[in-house]
């Protein structure tokens, strides 16, 4: 089960999907919405994705994991849209014959997902600030140039000249 969803994630269903008589260990990782980060209070989150690429790169991730680790089954579900405190943003389930493999594979999956899958988190703080999370980028530099998205989107067309052919 590899899935992007706007509905609440059901961890029990994901666990069920990786259950197998060949497995002696199952590991489920859940990312959840934390209230405080570096002293700042979150009100809620909004996750957005390049959905078609996120879906195909999650499938690619699953395949790479299956090649690297001796696992039985993998399931990944990522939530999109608005999430309240405590809700599950991502769930990764892995089953394997022995537990060492499950821990290694699970950790690799979440670490790589966070580096590679085109999904973005927007923090909404209780003080009203809204901030895209882009590790490495200065949020002020980005926020300072907000040009009123959505009026412009999709309407804008440009016709760029070719550079050096």
């Amino acid at each position, binding site marked *: 089960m590899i899935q992007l969803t706007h509905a609440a994630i059901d961890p029990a269903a994901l666990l069920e999907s990786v259950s197998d008589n060949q497995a002696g260990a199952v590991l489920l990782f859940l990312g959840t919405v934390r209230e405080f980060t570096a002293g700042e209070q979150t009100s809620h989150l909004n996750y957005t994705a390049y959905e078609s690429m996120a879906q195909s790169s999650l499938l690619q991730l699953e395949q790479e994991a299956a090649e690297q680790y001796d696992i039985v089954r993998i399931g990944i579900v990522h939530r999109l849209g608005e999430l309240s405190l405590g809700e599950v943003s991502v769930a990764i389930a892995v089953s394997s014959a022995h537990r060492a493999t499950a821990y290694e594979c699970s950790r690799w999956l979440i670490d790589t997902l966070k580096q590679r899958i085109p999904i*973005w988190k927007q923090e909404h703080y209780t003080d009203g600030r809204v901030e895209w999370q882009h590790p490495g980028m200065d949020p002020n530099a980005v926020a300072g140039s907000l040009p009123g998205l959505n009026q412009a989107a999709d309407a804008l067309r440009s016709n760029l000249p070719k*550079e050096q052919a």
Partner: protein
Amino acid sequence: MTAAADTVSILFFAAAADLVGAERLQLSLAGPLTLAELQQTLFREYPPLAAQAKFLMWAVNEQYAAAQTKLQAGDTIACIPPVSGG
């Protein structure tokens, strides 16, 4: 969302969409173009995007792509700021 035969689409996400002021641009290809050339053109038109250039990743048809990738009519290019899923 349908593209003319001689155009490419460029998608912007998250803060990149804010910097450009659009989630999608549609461009006519006047001739062969690499991803690097497209980027340079975009950076000239959108200085706020250029300021973040070193942080951006790019995809062509849903695969991360190197700058020298040659673009073809019908391609979908995506400008991908640092991801933060999970």
